[in-house]
């Protein structure tokens, strides 16, 4: 690949068929660091966490009212048998949005209908967010920064599996990643860990300090079902910042979980802490609920964090955001995203240095990346993910809008449902995870469908535009020999040089 092709494909989201290649590829990337718009039209019109949370709050309120009404009408309800419906046990990446929580017994049709309505609404919000993300990807003039947004959103992954996360998943990217993609790592980390999607996805919103005012009240009543949930605290250290096996212990995780108690969401939390959280703010707002917070000093990785309410965990996040282990972990991932599945140690070291010396200033890191020879290697270094392949195909075909439901279905079929990796570690960023036999066959099937709708485009003329200076003689011959324009287009989209970047 020549430099223009590398800038367009490895750094960007693929060339648009109707745009000339950048004359100065390096400057084209650098100027994007100032031209980026965190809130372009399509994103600005997408559902927000406030609107999604308001809908969820209405739903929970309605459920509570109906439950009370039912209890009033039937004072001695017979124990209903478990509903016979089976929620499928889904392998990761299978189509459809599974209800992660089992259904309660269907005691009343109205409650069931309300739940179905809530699911439909949240799936519609999810599809709307996918449409916004895809449409923006098709028309953006700053595709390099958009790629960085996807990188960070996957680093701070939530998964649209449970009802409360389905509609909120995309809003985390729009509200916590986009505004900080050109800021500091610390600010992005703080925004993510205070976002309702993350607080609900990793159960932080239901964690209660056993020694907190609420925890003690419940303990005094003899109810044992309240206490710490260490899920988010562990994943912050393991996945978001320091990285696994970097020296923290189980005791550090538990201490951090104690410090994090009280970090919750207004209006849409559940469990005994919900009322304590719901007194302030609009549904979906981050709140610090002192009633849930474990009092006292905490010692985490040898450092004392004095009691201080919301500031206690914030101080921990501030420290880990600029820790050397975090720089190693996060910069290795960034290097892997651009320089290949096994990133060169010299590149990782250079990015680490830029990260630590700048206190986690992300544009400084990106400039160091662009200036590194390891990311300008001519042979392709990465196998495109399904999202990357889909967006680059649609950009090549000059498409300018994307339909939410169609995108959701397509990405499901290609094996990378958007914002739904099924695990908090996000999607893998290595070829072995995407270059499967069946996965390639599906791209061929999808390419034929794409091409059937764009048959006026001549693939022989398009190829050098989207892969400037980089189309192999074998591909040129194969395109020239095709029986129809549509077939040639399909073949171009699955050509070896188009599957990689």
């Amino acid at each position: 690949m020549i430099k223009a092709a590398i800038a367009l494909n490895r750094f960007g989201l693929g060339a648009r068929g109707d745009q000339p290649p950048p004359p100065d590829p390096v400057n084209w990337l650098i100027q994007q660091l100032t031209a980026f718009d965190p809130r372009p039209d399509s994103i600005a019109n997408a559902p927000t966490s406030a609107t999604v949370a308001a809908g969820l709050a209405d739903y929970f309120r309605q459920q509570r009212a109906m439950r009370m009404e039912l209890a009033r009408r039937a004072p001695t309800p017979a124990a209903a048998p478990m509903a016979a419906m089976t929620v499928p046990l889904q392998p990761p990446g299978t189509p459809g949005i599974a209800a992660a929580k089992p259904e309660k017994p269907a005691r009343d049709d109205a409650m069931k209908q309300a739940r179905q309505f809530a699911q439909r609404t949240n799936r519609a919000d999810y599809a709307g967010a996918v449409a916004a993300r895809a449409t923006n990807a098709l028309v953006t003039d700053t595709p390099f920064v958009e790629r960085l947004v996807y990188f960070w959103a996957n680093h701070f992954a939530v998964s649209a599996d449970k009802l409360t996360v389905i509609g909120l998943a995309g809003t985390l990217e729009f509200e916590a990643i986009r505004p900080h993609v050109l800021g500091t790592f610390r600010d992005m980390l703080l925004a993510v860990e205070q976002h309702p999607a993350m607080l609900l996805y990793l159960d932080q919103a239901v964690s209660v300090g056993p020694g907190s005012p609420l925890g003690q009240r419940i303990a005094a009543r003899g109810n044992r079902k309240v206490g710490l949930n260490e899920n988010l605290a562990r994943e912050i250290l393991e996945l978001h910042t320091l990285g696994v096996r970097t020296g923290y212990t189980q005791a550090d995780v538990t201490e951090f979980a104690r410090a994090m108690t009280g970090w919750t969401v207004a209006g849409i939390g559940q469990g005994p802490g919900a009322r304590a959280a719901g007194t302030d703010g609009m549904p979906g707002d981050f709140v610090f609920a002192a009633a849930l917070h474990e009092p006292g000093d905490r010692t985490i990785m040898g450092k004392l964090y004095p009691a201080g309410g919301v500031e206690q965990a914030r101080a921990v996040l501030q420290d880990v955001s600029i820790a050397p282990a975090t720089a190693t972990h996060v910069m290795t991932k960034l290097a892997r995203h651009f320089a290949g599945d096994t990133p060169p140690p010299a590149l990782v070291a250079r990015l680490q240095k830029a990260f630590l010396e700048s206190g986690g200033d992300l544009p400084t890191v990106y400039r160091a990346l662009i200036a590194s020879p390891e990311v300008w290697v001519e042979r392709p270094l990465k196998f495109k993910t399904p999202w990357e392949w889909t967006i680059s195909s649609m950009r090549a075909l000059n498409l300018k809008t994307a339909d939410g439901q169609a995108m959701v279905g397509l990405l499901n079929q290609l094996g990378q449902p958007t914002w739904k990796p099924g695990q908090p570690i996000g999607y893998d960023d290595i070829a072995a995870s995407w270059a499967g036999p069946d996965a390639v066959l599906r791209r061929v099937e999808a390419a034929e469908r794409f091409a059937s709708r764009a048959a006026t485009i001549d693939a022989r003329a398009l190829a050098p535009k989207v892969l400037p200076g980089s189309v192999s003689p074998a591909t040129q011959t194969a395109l020239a020999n095709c029986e129809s324009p549509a077939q040639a287009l399909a073949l171009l989209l699955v050509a070896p040089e188009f599957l990689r970047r």
Partner: protein
Amino acid sequence: MYDRRAFLGAGVAGAVFAALGPRLAFAKAETDKRFVFIIQRGAADGLGIVAPVGDPAFAGARGDLALDFASAPKLDALFALHPAMARVQALYGAKQALFAHAVASPYRDRSHFDGQNVLESGGTGAYQLKDGWMNRLLGVLPPTEAKAIAVSATVPLALRGARDVSSYAPSNLPQASDDLLQRVSMLYAGDSQLHALWSEAMGTRALTGDLAAGGGANAAATGALAARLMAPANGARIAMIETGGWDTHTGQRGRLSTQLKGLDAMIGALQSGLGPLWADTMVLVATEFGRTVAVNGTGGTDHGTASSAMLLGGAVRGGRVLADWPGLAPTALFEGRDLRPTLQLDAFIGGAVAGHFGVEPAKAMAALFPSSKGTAVVAGLV
């Protein structure tokens, strides 16, 4: 109650005995053996699946999570199976289901991703080995049996490695035209990575026919699909199915029950789909690690250590729970919170696979779990 005999037999005597046993004669011969690994990603709670209801500390430690076992049929004096697994319970009655408990891989931390890496690679630490133990298994089998498939769009780590492995999952996309497929074959001929992937894809496509239209989103359909891929004489002999949703930090009681219903349906569909071949089939169900003994503050359990595993199928000497039970009393727990491991998952898998395919146990261990190759397998599983 505890199958200690099999344990003791797993020592030197066991290895020698197995090596001299009649199965050795078939080691190089073609057989009809089928092997399926169902991985439970997310740390499945062994204590909530095969519950030690006879342990005096169980009911106290488990609170509400113990309630599901009030009416569950007992497996033996100590254990009961979760009532959602009716088909597996029936297999146990027919001596075609064996459970191992307090079992763990060599991994002793609590990261899902490192734990799954160890479980699938067969190393003793995360990222020590680049390929998976199922791929290395193919190397010790006769070529006719060394055919494996992942019932998913991509190949999971356990099956990745030097030997070619196929993958398949039903697609709702319209099938591409044959002419385009041929042109893609030609275009990929010069690209070694894509050529290998494409050859596998085309081979599998020929095998499944119109199955792609079937959907297959739920567990039973996935089990039936795996059976369809394995039943033909030229089909896969070895398959892997991935299941998720086991990370029950909250509301475990309902969620685990739903999960187990799905798993039970998947196993039932495998059994009925394989028909007479079920007699020569072994299904392994295992997870990366277990969950805490105590219930957390949100009706769930957090990451733990030892869990349970299952062997199912006509080839299994079942109707037993294999456990050197460490107990659930607070002083008996690993690091004061988890079920203490007393059985090595590597030795259990090594024994199961060696016995099933008639491979010499030491050779199987060296290939599958090279870092534990001196370890004797658990004998007498088949």
